[in-house]
C-alpha cells in the first residue's frame, strides 16, 4: 500500500512537474546557463582540467533549485490549486502523501545533471570518465532521494512563512555556496563549513565526486541517506503540527 502510494504519487507529480515551463527552466535551462558561465570562467582562468567537476556541480545546483522551488512552495501550491484539503483528508498520513511530491521535485533535477554533462561534453569537451561508475549509479539516486527528503522538511517548515516563494529565492545561492557545489569550502570563511555538514547536498556532492574522480563514496552516501531520514522525521513532526493547527483553526485553505 505505502510503496504503491509512493510510486503512484511520485510518478504523477513527476509528470506534472515535467509539464511545467517553470521547472523546465529551473532544471534544464538555468543549470546549462550556470554551467556555461562556470565553464567559460575556468577555461579563461587558472583551473584547466576541472570541466567535469564543474558539470557535476552545476547539475547538483539544478537539483537543489528544483527541490527548493518545488518543495518549498509545495503546500502553498496545493492550496492555490484547491487540492490541499483532498491531500490532507485522504486516509494515509499526510506525510506519506507529501513525500512523493517532494521526491519528485528533486527527481526532475536529474535533468540538470544529464543536461550539464551533455552540454559540457558536446560544447566544452568535458571528459566523462568516471572512475567508479557503479558507485556513481548509487550516489546519484541516493543524493536525489535525500534532497527529496530535505524537500519534505522545507515544505513542512516554509508553510510557517507566508511568502515561502520569496524565501526560496533567498536560499538558492547560499546553499550552493555552503554545500560546496562549485566553490570549494576551503575558499569560504571557516564558519560556513559546519553549515554544510547538516545539508545533504554537501555529502551527495562529495559522494558523486568520490565516485567520479576516484575514492570511497560509500561513507558519504551513508551520511547523505542518514541525513535524509532525519529530515523525514523532523518533517513528519512539523507536518503533524501544521495539520493539527490547520484543522483546529480551520485555516487549511487560507493563504
Amino acid at each position, binding site marked *: 500500500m505505502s510503496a504503491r502510494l509512493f510510486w503512484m504519487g511520485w510518478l504523477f507529480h513527476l509528470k506534472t512537474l515535467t509539464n511545467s*515551463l*517553470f521547472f523546465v*527552466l529551473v532544471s534544464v*535551462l*538555468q543549470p546549462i*546557463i*550556470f554551467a*556555461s*558561465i*562556470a565553464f*567559460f*570562467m*575556468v*577555461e*579563461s*582562468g*587558472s*583551473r584547466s582540467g576541472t570541466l567535469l567537476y564543474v558539470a557535476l556541480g552545476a547539475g547538483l545546483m539544478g537539483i537543489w533549485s528544483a527541490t527548493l522551488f518545488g518543495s518549498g512552495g509545495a503546500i502553498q501550491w496545493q492550496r492555490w490549486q484547491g487540492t490541499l484539503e483532498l491531500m490532507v483528508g485522504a486516509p494515509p498520513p499526510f506525510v506519506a502523501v507529501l513525500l512523493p511530491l517532494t521526491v519528485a521535485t528533486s527527481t526532475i533535477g536529474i535533468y540538470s545533471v544529464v543536461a550539464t554533462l551533455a552540454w559540457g561534453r558536446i560544447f566544452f569537451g568535458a571528459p566523462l570518465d568516471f572512475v567508479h561508475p557503479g558507485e556513481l549509479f548509487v550516489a546519484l539516486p541516493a543524493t536525489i532521494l535525500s534532497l527529496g527528503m530535505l524537500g519534505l522538511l522545507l515544505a513542512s517548515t516554509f508553510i510557517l*512563512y*507566508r*511568502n515561502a*516563494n*520569496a*524565501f526560496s*529565492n*533567498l536560499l*538558492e*545561492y*547560499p546553499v*550552493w*555556496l555552503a554545500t560546496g557545489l*562549485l*566553490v*570549494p569550502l576551503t*575558499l*569560504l570563511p571557516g564558519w560556513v563549513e559546519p553549515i554544510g555538514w547538516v545539508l545533504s547536498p554537501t555529502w551527495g556532492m562529495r559522494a558523486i565526486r568520490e565516485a567520479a574522480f576516484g575514492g570511497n563514496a560509500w561513507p558519504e552516501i551513508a551520511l547523505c541517506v542518514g541525513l535524509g531520514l532525519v529530515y523525514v522525521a523532523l518533517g513528519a513532526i512539523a507536518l503533524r503540527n501544521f495539520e493539527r493547527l490547520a484543522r483546529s483553526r480551520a485555516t487549511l485553505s487560507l493563504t
Partner: protein
Amino acid sequence: MNTSLRVFFVGGGISYRALFNWINPGIYIPTMLGAPLFQILFFTYLGRYAGSQDDAFFIVGNSIQVAAMSGIYGMTMGIANERQYGTLQPLLATPANRLAIFTGRALPFVLNGLFVSAFGFAVSWLLLDFHPAPGSVPALALAVLVTTCSCVSLGMLIGSIGLRARDVFFGANLVYFLMLLVCGVNVAPDDLPGWLAAIGKCLPLTHGIEAAREIASGSPLGDVAGLLWTEAFIGLAYATAAYGLFRLFETEGRRRASLETY
C-alpha cells in the same frame, strides 16, 4: 498639474504599488536584497576559484546586473499584470495619454533598480573589501543609472509581449539568466564565442558594465562616454520597440475583442 504629468507620476506610482508583486517587505527583502547579496558573493567566490578575473570584475558586474531584477521582473509585472489582474480593459478605456501611462510605470522601477544596485555595491564594500577609485562614485552612479534605465526598457518590451503571450514570466526568467552569461557580467565578452558576444552587445548591461568597470578602476567619465551613449541608445531602442508593441497590442486587442483573453 498637467494631466499627462499626473498620469506619469501619480499613475506610475499607483501602478507600482498595485502591480509589483514583490513590494511587500516579506518578499522584497529576501528577493530584492537577499538574493542579490548572495549572487554577488557566489560569483565573486567562484571567480576566486576559477582565477579568471579579480574580485572587482565580479562585484561591479553583478552589482549592476542585480538592478535588472527590478528592470526585467518588476517592469514585466508593471505592464503584464494589468492583463493578469483584469485591469487592462478599464485602463485602456480611459482617454489618458498612452505614452504617459506607459513611461510613467518605468520611473519607480528605475529608482528601485538604483537602490538594489547601490545595496550591492555597499555590501561589497563591507564584505568583499571593494574600494573603487576615490572620486569615481558619481561617475559610477551615472553608469548605473544609464544601465538601469536600459534594463527597464528591456523589461518594458517583455512586459508588452506579456499583453499577448501566455506565459511571459518564463521569458523574463530566461532573459534574466541569459544576461548573466552574455552581457559580460561574469565572463568577459572576449572570452565568449563571437556569436554569444554579439548577442550580448545588442542587449542592455554589456556596455554599461564595461563602462562601470573602467570607471571603478580610475578612468575619467570622458573616457567611457561612448560606452554610456551606446548603452543609452540601446535602452532607447528597446523602449521604442516596447511602446510600439504596446500600441499594436492595444489596437489589435480592441479590434479582436481579445484584450484580456489567454
